[in-house]
């Protein structure tokens, strides 16, 4: 552009960059604080401060986290629920979306409306609880991922993606005698990998972050998800620790306090997300864009 920027515009650009830097610091600092605190020695950490680096250095809080029965069980539950929910949810959503994308299938409209209606109206928490009770799913891992693993929204997103696959691919396979099943599993699914990966990641993050399902549907606290265990540690520190048999004052405990332990637990809960986040971020953004295109 030939036209020179005015002074005001240049000032704006400088201020804008400064604002963004401040925003980034605001977004990152709390996590930095938690990481540094979790490595600190309690007696030094007690004095407070900004924790730009750890005060002293000890891994004892982490050692205690990984020796803690509740947290290990929580990790197990969270892994089962995340993998089960994301796996089943993605596969079934992909299967459901395919017939719904077929204009010539008799009954397609009825199916579509039945699915769409549930986006706007639902039974609510209490009937769902009673249903799971009736199905004898309370207190099982199923309760944590089966009801929530399929959402109409995801089905619509996948359906939109299928629309972009050229019909000629299916037609030529059909001429060669392939059935709808073969076409779906051999042609459609492999071509849909990008969108299915996105959906699987969306689901996985959702299940990994869920705590409420455990609190409502699971009475045996050994089957609680990691987030639910973390919640108990955060909200009810003393009582939770007694229940979990953690006594801060045992032999090597001088290097662990309630707060450093809480911080270490927060890190263990968050690290899986932090690790995958940079890689999957672009898929998430793409997925949201596809979803926002009206179907």
């Amino acid at each position, binding site marked *: *552009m030939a036209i020179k*920027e*005015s002074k*005001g*515009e240049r000032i*704006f*650009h400088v201020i804008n960059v400064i604002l*963004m830097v401040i*925003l*980034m610091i605001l*977004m*990152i600092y*709390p*996590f930095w604080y938690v990481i540094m605190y979790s490595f600190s020695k309690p007696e030094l950490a*007690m004095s*407070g*401060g*900004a924790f730009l680096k750890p005060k002293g250095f000890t891994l004892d809080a982490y050692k205690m986290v990984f020796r803690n029965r509740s947290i290990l069980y929580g990790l197990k539950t969270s892994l089962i629920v995340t993998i089960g929910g994301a796996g089943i949810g993605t596969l*079934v*959503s992909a*299967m*459901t979306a*395919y*017939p719904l994308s077929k204009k010539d*299938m*008799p*009954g397609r409209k009825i199916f579509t409306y*039945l699915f769409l209606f*549930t986006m*706007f*109206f*639902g*039974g*609510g*928490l*209490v*009937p*769902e609880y*009673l*249903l799971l009770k009736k199905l004898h799913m309370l207190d099982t891992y199923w309760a944590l991922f*089966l009801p929530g693993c*399929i959402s109409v929204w995801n089905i619509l997103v996948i359906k939109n993606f299928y629309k972009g696959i050229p019909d000629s691919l299916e037609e030529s396979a059909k001429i060669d005698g392939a059935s*709808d*099943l073969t076409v779906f599993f051999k042609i459609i699914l492999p071509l849909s990998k990008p969108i299915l990966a996105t959906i699987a990641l969306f689901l996985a993050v959702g299940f990994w*972050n869920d*705590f*409420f399902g455990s609190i*409502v549907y699971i009475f045996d606290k050994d089957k609680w998800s990691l987030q639910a265990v*973390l*919640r108990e540690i955060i909200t009810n520190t003393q009582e939770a620790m007694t229940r979990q048999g953690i006594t801060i004052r045992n032999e090597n405990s001088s290097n662990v306090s309630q*707060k450093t332990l809480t911080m270490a637990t*927060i890190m263990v*809960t968050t690290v899986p*997300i932090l690790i995958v986040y*940079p890689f999957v*971020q672009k898929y*998430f953004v793409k997925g*949201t*864009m596809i979803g*926002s295109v009206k179907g």
Partner: protein
Amino acid sequence: MSEVNVLMNKKIVKKKNTSKKIWANICKYKYLYLLILPGFIHLLVFRYATMYGSIIAFKDYNMFKGIFESPWVGFKNFQDLFNTPKFPLVMKNTLIISLLKMIFGFPAPIILALLLNELKNLKFKKVTQTVVYLPHFISWVVFAGIIRAFLNPVDGFINEIIKVFTGGVPYDFLGSKSTFRSLLVVTDIYKGIGWGTIIYMAALAGVDPELYEAATIDGANLFQRMFYITLPSIKPVIMTLFILGLGGILNAGFEQIFLLYNDMVLPVADIIDTYIYRKGIKEAAYSLGAAAGMFKSVIALILVIITNKIANKIGEEGVW
């Protein structure tokens, strides 16, 4: 398969003359029905069966008799619900918290998207976006832990700052009725502002660059371009999202509030969802809880329909 066939059979009766042809069609598409079957069963069991189960809102639910056998009581549960002094308070809190989040939280991503859009260094822009999206992926449980660590009156970081810079006394933000709602709004914006920009950024990317060039040649400065080109081009998206937000006004943020509230702030923080959980699950008042849930669902459905009508009427794209 048989279930689907029965369903299809019903249809066939309606269109007698072509029934043979339809039956042939169904055979032709049998694998498609097979593919939709698991999702359809899931839909019937976990969506429509729960919808059926919500009729206990009109019954005096008895665990031993079950949903079907429990006696009908008409609107008694709803009368009980509306007569509890708790209920108006809970509705008021839900609406106030939602509206506060709307007023302050809705413009926030728009402003951020506009600012991001003006960044010239693409690499810097990308890094900023990556960082601001992050909180969206962190669970509310973790956030609640961090919020507590920062706001704790004894050794919270924010209270340390207050002590050092103002010499003031530590303040219990989480336990104070006057600050709790502000805290909800601020932390909600913090978690959602980055992710909220995505749709706006997509809309901004679609604005014709020639418009900017032409405006620049005509002497429009950056701020004029923002006001007369950028904002009008993303107005449809803003309107659609605003309407969607209004439709969801009864969702005041259950997880966030559930994790942060306590007895001290209950009068200002108790919302309809937390009330349903405490009554319907914790106190096992199933029928009352279901009535509150149904009340919420019905109002939400009406709101969505109304707001969508409005959207179509004013010429913006609705949800359907």
